[in-house]
């Protein structure tokens, strides 16, 4: 048990290290001189820049050191919670993230809940009515939701609700979690993981239904309700839990679109801003944090997996 846990933790923490390394290397070789970049606007404005002063700045920020030294320094700072300074905004990247990430987390959390609360019952309902029209309708809408990306669904829904039905104004901006404006973004975000949850629940239940012990339970005269609640539902949570990585990825990716479309000042908007302004410390921080969210999710599931499904231990 202990070696299994340790190997999982090692696997995901080295993975995170790899992401940090790749992002840093990309910035190091791709971005060019950050000092030049800082004063680019002034230089374009016709101001003569003093090379000696620039070199002094480089030494001050440690930019004249070798790649391994600088990367080690960056990692050391990360461990202490220092994500560097934004080039464009001239303030700590962590301050920007601290202001933005909670907004996306709140929306993401509610969207996940919504997705689970709709997805699991829908999956169960489809499996119990296997191959009947209800099943086909649920599976079919899952296929459609899965095939059409959020940035197509959102504008079409907006058009339908605002211009077509005229029942709402355009939701714009962030006024807290309990404002009616976040309802539409949340629903649209919840559509991302929904097909995965439905599919996994349905497949798991169909597999359980064909097991011998269910037949035994039916043979000894248990009611349908008891068979479902006692024997089947326990096993449904396992496949949903194992697809937590996929769910988190679709939430992080979805945040980019809904925050752009609905002007929500969250983590996704920060990422897009960073990319538009070519602000490397911001882009790196968002990539590393995005990967951190998904990998910690994966790791936690790996760690609790033996508890959920005792059959899979010690291998």
């Amino acid at each position, binding site marked *: 048990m202990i070696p299994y846990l340790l190997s999982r933790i090692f696997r995901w923490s080295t*993975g995170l290290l790899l992401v940090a390394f790749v992002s840093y290397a990309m910035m190091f070789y791709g*971005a060019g001189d950050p000092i030049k970049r800082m004063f680019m606007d002034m230089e374009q404005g016709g101001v003569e820049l003093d090379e000696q002063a620039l070199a002094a700045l480089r030494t001050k920020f440690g930019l004249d050191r070798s790649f391994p030294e600088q990367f080690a320094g960056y990692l050391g700072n990360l461990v202490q919670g220092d994500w560097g300074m934004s080039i464009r905004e001239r303030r700590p990247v962590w301050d920007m993230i601290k202001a933005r990430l909670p907004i996306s987390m709140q929306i993401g959390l509610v969207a996940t809940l919504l997705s689970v609360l709709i997805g699991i019952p829908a999956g169960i309902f489809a499996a119990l009515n296997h191959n009947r029209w209800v099943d086909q309708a649920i599976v079919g809408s899952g296929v459609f939701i899965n095939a059409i990306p959020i940035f197509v669904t959102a504008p079409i829904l907006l*058009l339908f609700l605002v211009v077509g039905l005229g029942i709402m104004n355009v939701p714009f901006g962030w006024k807290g979690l309990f404002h009616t404006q976040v309802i539409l973004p949340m629903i649209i975000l919840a559509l991302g993981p929904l097909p995965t949850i439905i599919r996994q629940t349905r497949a798991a239940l169909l597999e359980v239904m064909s097991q011998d012990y269910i037949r035994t339970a039916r043979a000894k005269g248990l009611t349908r309700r008891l068979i479902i609640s006692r024997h089947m539902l326990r096993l449904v949570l396992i496949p949903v839990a194992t697809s937590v990585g996929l769910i988190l990825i679709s939430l992080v990716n979805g945040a980019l679109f809904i925050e752009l479309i609905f002007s929500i000042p969250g983590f996704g908007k920060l990422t897009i801003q960073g990319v538009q302004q070519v602000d490397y410390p911001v882009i790196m921080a968002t990539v590393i944090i995005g990967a951190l969210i998904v990998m910690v999710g994966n790791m936690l599931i790996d760690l609790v997996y033996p508890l959920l499904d005792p059959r899979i231990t010690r291998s």
Partner: protein
Amino acid sequence: MVDVRSLWADAWRRLLKNRLAVAGMVVIGIFLFLALFGRLLTPYDFLAQDLANQLQPPSAAHWLGTDALGRDILSRLLYGARTAAIVAFTTTGISLFLGILIGTTAGFLGGRIDNFLMWLTDVTMSIPGLLMAMLINTALKRPIVGWFDQLYMQTKNPFFLNTLWLDFVLVFGALALISWPGYARLLRGQVLSISGTTYVESARAIGASTMRIMWRHIVPNSMGPLIVAVTAGMGGAIVLESSLSFLGVGIQPPNASWGSMLSESLTMWRTFPHLMVTPAVTIGLILVAFTFFGDGLNDALNPRQTD
């Protein structure tokens, strides 16, 4: 006359029985045809601005209307089909190559190399792909611009001054680097399961080399799942390209991409909804077609796997 039934003919027959798959195939066929010949079918250039006819609704002259710069939307849509097709084929090709290389290496060599490569695959799969693609796209831009400049200096070939191609190179690189893990996992699984079969064992017993076993046995027998994965991968590449362009990092203006057409429309969709509906419906239609076709292919090529 003997009725010859090959494996592929059987699969083809099964595919044709699936109505949704056939519908998907027809839509994909039209899409590819328009991507290739679309420019010949429209009288307008996709870049030609007509400032006297801005934001026109659909009419006889402009079947789908014009955009904020008076450009014909149908022509831009057709050019966007070309963009999507180029990106779909190229990135799928590159990531398939990477995936086959990594997956077969892991499956054949096993041991530590397998462990390392599968760790790399898992890690790549758990990075939110769009974030990484945006980082790669931004980071590669400067070096590639510099590289193109140098190539122009050396060759004096005006091709290297053409920045329209630059966006494509960046998108290919970014998308291929995030989409190989699926193919790698598939190929590794195929290598492991096919290596255990008796026909591979007998081939090995009569002295066939690893390369021969690879090309004569493993690759042909993996074709079914691989074709299905490639179809899904092309749909995936189209989503990723339009996502990147929608977020403003992929194919840049003046090039036309469905994703950027959609994001350009976001500022004025209330007054000019046709600007938004046309690219949105096109993207949705193509992706649903790819899903239906892929599912149909899966049922036809891998009949043993049933739901």
